[in-house]
């Protein structure tokens, strides 16, 4: 039986320059969903630094990305990190869409896929892993966000 899904769970609109934005209570607002999608629309910086459940353990996160900046391609890894950093050189205003898989499962590490595009200088794709089986209860973007930036968080059943 078909189940309508891809539901908006939360919207955060940044009104003043903010360093660190946390969406909390995900275990409550995301109950019943399998995956999450976080969409950032930024005015001048689509770079995010994602931390889950405030876990700043060195080595808790790993990642790899690939980017195109109009004249060149590159790929970088982010091993032994304290956060998931999808983009390395793609910045500027644009969109960053981050998918979180099986966020509430307690028998898997948490994996992420992202795609970002900036009107300033390029396009990016990345994947990351939080080496922890705990259910995700909060998502923090550690970057500095400016007024007008928005986050939308969606839930997808599965």
């Amino acid at each position, binding site marked *: 039986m*078909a189940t309508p899904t891809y539901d908006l769970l939360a919207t955060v609109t940044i009104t003043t320059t903010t360093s660190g934005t*946390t969406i909390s209570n995900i275990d*409550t*607002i995301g109950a019943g969903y399998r995956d999450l999608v976080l969409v950032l629309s930024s005015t001048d910086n689509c770079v995010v630094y994602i931390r889950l459940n405030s876990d700043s353990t060195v080595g808790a996160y790993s990642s790899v990305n690939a980017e195109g900046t109009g004249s060149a391609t590159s790929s970088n890894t982010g091993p032994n990190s304290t956060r998931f950093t999808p983009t390395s050189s793609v910045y500027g205003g644009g969109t960053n869409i981050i998918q979180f898989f099986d966020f509430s499962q307690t028998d898997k590490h948490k994996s992420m896929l992202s795609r970002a595009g900036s009107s300033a200088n390029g396009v990016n794709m990345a994947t990351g892993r939080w080496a922890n089986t705990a259910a995700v209860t909060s998502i923090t973007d550690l970057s500095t966000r400016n007024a007008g930036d928005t986050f939308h968080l969606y839930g997808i059943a*599965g």
Partner: protein
Amino acid sequence: MAFNLSLLGASGGGAAGAYDLLETTTLTTSASSVTFSGLGSYSDYAHLQIRYSARTSGAVTAGILIVTANGDTGSNYSSHELTGAGSSVFADSDLSRMRTAYLIGTDSASDSFAPGIIDLLNFSSADTYKTFRSLSGIADTGTLISLRSGSWRNTDSVTSLTLVDRSGNNFVTKSRFSLYGIKAA
């Protein structure tokens, strides 16, 4: 800045029924393949999407997920990829199979599963080849992020999709594959 979003409600979103969960398979025992059949009953959708979190039993850092349509195991497929491997970006192709996405293997951490999203476009049309695109990756012992596209060179409506590991290994327990339908505007 922290937001207590339990106060902001947990519903809303787009038009109900524009993106629907159709089926989910979560393996409780390992399996050599996963098949979504009876797709003809979903013809009121324009496109299909598979979201997965999966792992192969192969002793590798990275496996390849192959998709076949309607049981066609012939060389009637093609696929291309653009992949970031950490220190380089490369492109590759396969003109006989739909090398659709990456899987993670047992050379990785035991609780590590590869994520992927596969879109199958216009799956029920009877006058075009069927095309797919995907985004998948692994971030473990191996580090790969890949954007792919490909086609099944057949105009038949897709009535079933079968997913296998290219090397013949099993999908392991806890691997999850969810099928979604997307309606046209």
